[in-house]
C-alpha cells in the first residue's frame, strides 16, 4: 500500500530569499518518517512542498516514481493533518470525514461504509453526529486524522498535529497515530519540533536546521550516534567538552587534559588533533575517591526516584548536568569534590568545529 517519496535536489525560494537550497531525501514505502528541527528550519516548508501548498523552484519530488511538481494539490491524493486540526466548523464529524469522499463522487453506500470503518479505527464513532465545537482538542484531531486517511491517500502528511494538545493527551494521541499508521501501512511524513515525540513515533527521522538536513537515521542512530554537535544538542541533552586525540601503541583515544580515555570505535585519527566530545548526562560516572577523571564539584542534586540529577561545576566555572541511576544510601553532599569518568563506548567525538563525527560507522 505504501509508496516511496523521492525528494531530489529541491529548491524553495521566497522572492530572492532561498530557504531550501538543493535538499534531497528518500522516504521508503510505508515508512513513518519525521522531519524534526527547531522552528524556522524549513521542515514545514518542505512538507508543504510535498502536498503542493508551496511551489517548487528547483529539483523535483517524485511519489511512486511520478514527478508531482506540477500537479495541483487537489489532484495529488495526499491526506494532510493540520496543526490546528482545520476541522470544518459547519459540518458534523461524519460530514467532515465524508467530505473528501463526496468530492470524489463516490456512491453513497460506499461512503457510509468507509466512514463507519474509519470512525472505528480512530475510535470516535460515538461522536459521529456532533458538531466540532462540541469536541475536545483530541477528538477534533481524531476527526482530522480520519478525514485525511479515509480518502486512501498515497501519502499522509502531518504538520505538528499534537502541538495544540496538553501533555497527557499528546502522549495518548501519538500512540494512537503510531498504531493507526502501522495498521494501514501508509507512507507518512510527520513534522515536529518535539524531539521526544519524534523518537517515540518515527521509523526514521531527518533532523533539519537552516534548510539543510543534518542527519537522517533511526531514532536510536540519531540519539546515540549524532553526526554533528547540532544534532547532539538538539536531540536530548549533551555536554560538549574540548579534548585532543592521542595515539599510543596502536590504541587511539581522547585526552581531556591528562585524563585519557581509550576508544575502540574511533576513525583513524592523528596524534594531538583538537576535537570536541559530546557526553550525555547519563554517560558520566561519578567517583568520590580520587583516582583519574575530570575534576568537578557537586553543587546541587535533585532526587527524582528512578534517577538522580547532579549539577556539577567544572574548574573553569562551567556547569554540567549528570544523571545517575539512584542508588541506595545517601546522595553525594553539596560541595563535594569529585572525579568524573565517561563511558567510552557511548560518547561521541567530533572535529573541533563540531561538524563531522569521528566515530567509525558501525560495521565499517
Amino acid at each position, binding site marked *: 500500500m505504501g509508496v516511496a517519496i523521492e525528494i531530489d535536489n529541491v529548491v524553495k525560494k521566497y522572492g530572492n530569499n532561498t530557504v531550501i537550497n538543493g535538499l534531497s531525501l528518500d522516504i521508503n514505502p510505508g515508512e513513518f518518517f519525521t522531519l524534526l528541527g527547531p522552528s524556522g528550519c524549513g521542515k514545514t516548508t518542505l512538507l508543504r512542498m510535498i*502536498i503542493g*501548498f508551496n511551489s517548487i523552484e528547483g529539483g523535483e519530488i517524485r511519489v511512486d516514481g511520478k514527478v508531482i511538481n506540477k500537479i*495541483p*494539490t*487537489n*489532484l*495529488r*491524493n*495526499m*491526506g*494532510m493533518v*493540520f*496543526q*490546528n486540526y*482545520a476541522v*470544518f*466548523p*459547519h459540518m458534523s464529524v461524519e460530514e467532515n470525514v465524508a*467530505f*473528501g469522499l463526496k*468530492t*470524489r463522487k463516490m456512491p453513497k453506500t460506499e461512503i457510509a461504509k468507509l466512514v463507519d470503518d474509519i470512525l472505528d479505527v480512530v475510535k470516535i464513532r460515538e461522536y459521529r453526529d456532533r458538531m466540532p*465545537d462540541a469536541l475536545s482538542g483530541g477528538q477534533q484531531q481524531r476527526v*482530522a486524522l480520519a*478525514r*485525511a486517511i479515509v*480518502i486512501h491517500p498515497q501519502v499522509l*502528511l502531518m504538520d505538528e498535529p499534537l502541538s495544540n494538545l496538553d501533555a497527557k493527551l499528546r502522549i495518548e494521541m501519538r500512540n494512537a497515530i503510531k498504531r493507526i499508521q502501522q495498521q494501514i501501512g501508509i507512507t507518512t511524513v510527520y513534522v515536529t519540533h518535539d524531539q521526544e515525540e519524534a523518537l517515540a513515533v518515527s521509523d526514521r527521522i531527518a533532523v533539519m536546521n537552516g534548510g539543510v538536513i543534518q542527519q537522517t537515521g533511526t531514532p536510536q542512530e540519531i540519539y546515540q550516534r549524532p553526526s554533528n554537535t547540532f544534532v547532539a544538542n538538539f536531540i536530548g541533552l549533551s555536554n560538549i567538552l574540548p579534548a585532543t586525540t592521542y595515539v599510543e601503541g596502536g590504541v587511539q583515544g581522547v585526552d581531556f587534559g591528562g585524563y585519557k580515555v581509550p576508544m575502540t570505535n574511533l576513525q583513524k585519527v592523528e596524534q594531538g588533533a583538537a576535537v570536541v566530545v559530546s557526553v550525555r548526562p547519563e554517560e558520566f560516572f561519578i567517583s568520590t575517591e580520587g583516582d583519574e577523571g575530570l575534576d568537578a564539584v557537586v553543587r546541587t542534586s535533585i532526587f527524582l526516584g528512578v534517577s538522580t540529577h547532579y549539577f556539577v561545576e567544572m574548574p573553569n566555572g562551567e556547569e554540567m548536568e549528570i544523571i545517575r541511576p539512584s542508588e541506595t544510601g545517601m546522595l553525594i553532599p553539596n560541595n563535594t569534590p569529585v572525579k568524573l569518568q565517561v563511558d567510552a563506548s557511548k560518547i561521541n567525538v567530533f572535529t573541533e568545529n563540531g561538524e563531522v563525527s569521528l566515530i567509525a560507522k558501525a560495521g565499517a
Partner: protein
Amino acid sequence: MSSKLNIWMGFTLVILAFFLLFVLYPLGIILYQSILDPESSKFTLAYFTKFFGRAFYWTTLVNSFKVTLCATLVSAAIGLPMAYLMRSYKIPGSKYLNILIVISYLSPPFIGAYAWIQLLGRNGFITQIINNIFGIKFGGIYGFAGIVLVFSLQSFPLIYMYVSGALKNLDNSLNEAAESLGCNAFQRVTQIIMPLVMPSLLAGSLLVFMRVFSDFGTPMLIGEGFRTFPVLIYTQFMGEVSTDDHFAASLCVIVIGITLLFFFLQRYIASRYSYAMTALKPMQAVQAHGSEKFFTYLFVFGVTFVAMLPQLTVIFTSFLEMTGNGSFYTGNFSFMNYENTIFAKDNNSIFNTYVFGLCAIGIVVVLGILISYLTARKPSILTNFLDTLTMFPYIIPGSVLGIALLSTFNTGIISLSGTAIIIIISLTIRRMPYTIRSSTAIISQISPSIEEAAISLGCTEFQSFRKIMVPMMLPGVLAGAIMSWITLISELSSSIILYTSSTSTLTVAIYAEVIRSNFGNAAAYSTILTLTSILSLLFFFRVTNNKDISV
C-alpha cells in the same frame, strides 16, 4: 458587603430609570395612543383597521417591503464579492478603499439621495449627458429605482464589513484541508467559504433590512410618487394637512412590531448559526493576473467610485456659484455657498450639531462604561433587563422614537418639546449601543482576576473599577464613542421631528435646504458634515490602530 452592593445597585437603578423614562415610557404612550379613541377615551382598533382597510395606506407597507428586499439583495450582491475580492487579492490602495467604503456607509442616506438627484435626476448632470447623446427624454431615476439605487450603494458596506470580518477569521488551513481532500477553487468557495460566511452575511443583511426599512429621508427626497411606510408615518405626524397623532401612533406600533421581529430573527440566526472561528493563519491576499486581475480591479474600484460619487458630487457642487436662490449653477466656482452657510448670521445649526453632539457623547461615554461594566461583571435580572433596554433604540426607527418622545414630553410635568435637551436625549439613547458594544467587547478581554488583584491589594470595588477597569477599558470605549459620534452627527430621522428653528442641526439644515431646492447651501453643509466624519474616522483608525470597523 452590602455597602459595596449598593453602589452598583444605585447605578443600575439610576440608569434603568433614565431608560424607562426616555425609552420604555414614551413607547408605552405610543402604544396607548394607538389603541385609544381620543373622543370617547375608550379602547379602539379603528386606527389599525383604517390602515389595513385602505390601499392608500397599506400599499406603503408593501412598497417598503419591496424596496427593502431589493436593496438588501443588491447590497448583498455587491458587498459579498467585494469582501471576498478584497481579502483574496492584493489590491493597490486597499487600505484607502476600505476607508472610502466605510465613509460611504457612514454618511446619511438622504445625502446620497439628493446627490443622486443632482446626477441622475430630471435635470441631473448624467441625465443631461445621456439625453444629449442619445437624443432621448430620460426623466431621471425617481421612485422605486432611485430608492433602491441609493440604499444599495449606502448599505452594501455593512455587508462588506460583516463578511470581511468573517473571512478574516477563516483560517486558511480550512481551505488547504479542502484542497488536500480534492476540492478545486470553485468547490472551495461554494462548500467551505460560503457556508462559513453565511451567518455573517445573514446578520449583515438583516441589519441592512432594518436600516433601509426604517429610513425616511431617502424615499422622501427621491421617492416622489412612490411612498414608503416611514414617509407615511412622517406625513401623518408632521404633515401640513390632516395630521392624526393617533393614527401615526398606530403606524409606529406596526413598524416597531416589524423591526422587532427582524431583530429577534437576526439574533436567533446569529446564535444558531455562528461558528467560533479564530484564524491563526488568515487567508493571504495573492496577486491577481490577466483577466482575473482586470475584472477584480474593475469591480472593486468601480463599486468604490460609484459609492463615493455622491460625496464627490456634494463636495464639488459646494464650490459652485449658484443663482436663483441656490438652485442653478452659474458655471463659476466660488465660496459663496460657504459664505451663505458657515458665516451666515443667525445660523446656529453647525454650532448646535457640535454642542449637542458633544453633550450627547459625554453622556454616552459615562453611561456606556457603566452599563457595559454592570451587564458584563454584575449580572442580575436588573442588569440583563438594562442590557436589552439599551439595545432597543438601536432597532427602533428614529422617527418612531422622535414621535414617541415628542408625544410624551410635549406637555405635563416634564415638558421638553422644543428644547435642546430632548434632542440631546434622543441622540444619546439612539447612538449609545455602539459605545456599549465596543466597551463590552473590551471588558471580555480583561481578566476578572485583575480586579481581584486590585481588591486584594486594598482597593474598594469602586476604586478598582475607577483606577483599574476604566483606564483599561478606555481604548474600547473611545473606539465605540467615535462610532457613536459619527453616527450621531449624521442623525436625521428623530432630529427632524424634534427640532425647532433654534435647535436645528446640520442634517436638518441640509434636509431643509434640499426641500427648498437650495442645493448650493445643502452642498456646503453636507461637505462640512462629511469632512467632520472623515476626520473622526481617521481619528478612529489612529486610536484603534487597525483598519477594521465593527458596527
